[in-house]
């Protein structure tokens, strides 16, 4: 027994085993730490982009990144008996409204004619 404990080769093996274990643990800890830092950086980048680069600090307004300017806010818009803000595109043209159609139109409360 004493011989085995004092065996330099056995000591070296035990030492190597401990070093190897520590190396593995250090490697795992490094990976976890790197992952956490990467995640925080990514979250910050997304947050900054969401706020159009205006959330904090001095920001350049150059560039053409995606913005949220036209994102629907609140209840959107809709016309009577018309679909609400669908992405569906329809292009049509027509001539002037007939007098009959104009008579059927409700009396306007306001006019959108530009300023």
């Amino acid at each position: 027994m004493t011989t085995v404990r004092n065996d330099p080769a056995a000591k070296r093996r035990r030492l190597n085993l401990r070093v190897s274990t520590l190396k593995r643990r250090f490697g795992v800890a490094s990976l976890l730490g790197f992952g956490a830092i990467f995640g925080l950086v990514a979250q910050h980048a997304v947050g900054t982009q969401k706020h159009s680069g205006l959330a904090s600090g001095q920001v350049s307004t150059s560039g053409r990144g995606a913005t949220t300017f036209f994102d629907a806010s609140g209840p959107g818009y809709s016309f009577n008996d018309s679909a609400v803000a669908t992405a569906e595109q329809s292009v049509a043209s027509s001539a002037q409204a007939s007098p009959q159609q104009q008579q059927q139109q409700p009396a306007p409360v306001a006019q959108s004619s530009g300023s």
Partner: protein
Amino acid sequence: MKIGLTVPSGLARHSFGAMGTGVLVVVPTDRLERAAAEVEALFATWEQALSRFRPTSELSALNRSSGRVIVVSELVFEVVSAALEAARATGGLFDPSLLPDLVRIGYDRTFDAVGSPKPSAAAPRGGGGWRRVRLDRSRSTIALPPGVELDLGGIAKGMAVDASLQALAGLGIDAALVSAGGDLAVRGRSPQSRAWPIAVGEDGNEVVELVRGALATSTTARRRWRQGDVGRHHLLDPRTGEPTRSGLLEVSVAAPTCMQAEVAAKAVFVLGPTLAAGFVARHGLAARLVNDDGRRIVLGPWPTRAEAAA
């Protein structure tokens, strides 16, 4: 062309002038006095801060800053932020930094006073200056590079309309229409109908029934003048710095907010009838275009004539 407007039963209207245009407020009759005072005060505050024609406005001070960092109010910061965001979102089709070109073609005073300005020898600058504007939200500061000046007239009007509706909601007014020079937004329903009938366009022949959201119209039929022998209007193409020649006479856009509708109408005007469809579809908007030849085009869920008349 001015057309006859009616006020549905149970509602009342109040009109006043602000930000270089006519403002209209329509609310339930018993809330008119309070609503009118609220909206008038709001527009007065916005005009004092954001008018480029008032030397004492914050915007005028900013435009004179020539590269210096200027501390601005929260209101001015938010409107400038929104204008830059709008420019980014439209790839520069909406451009708040075209003021030097507007001045060059003679629109250097309120429109009523423009008259017939003398030709300018200066070359067009074109847009894009907004890309070099620096904002610092934490300090509420803005830095305009030398040569860059902002005109926030259109977007500020749209935002003031949206802010007015919010303010009226804060007063517990659940049915309201606010219009500034025809850029308008509605909230709630009018008592006698499901929607707000709005005459669209210069001739006002077409009526759409807006249930919720906003409408804005840009046109070259108004704010026209002559500079020497050259006809001018106020809608500039940022690519050239000159009045647009996109083949359009009038553009109306429906959007969730008046600010969005106003910006989109300007962008569509610059794009022209061929490219407008993609822009309108991409942003989920609805639009009505009138070509130079009078032909009408509708894009997105804009009501057809038959629907509007049904």
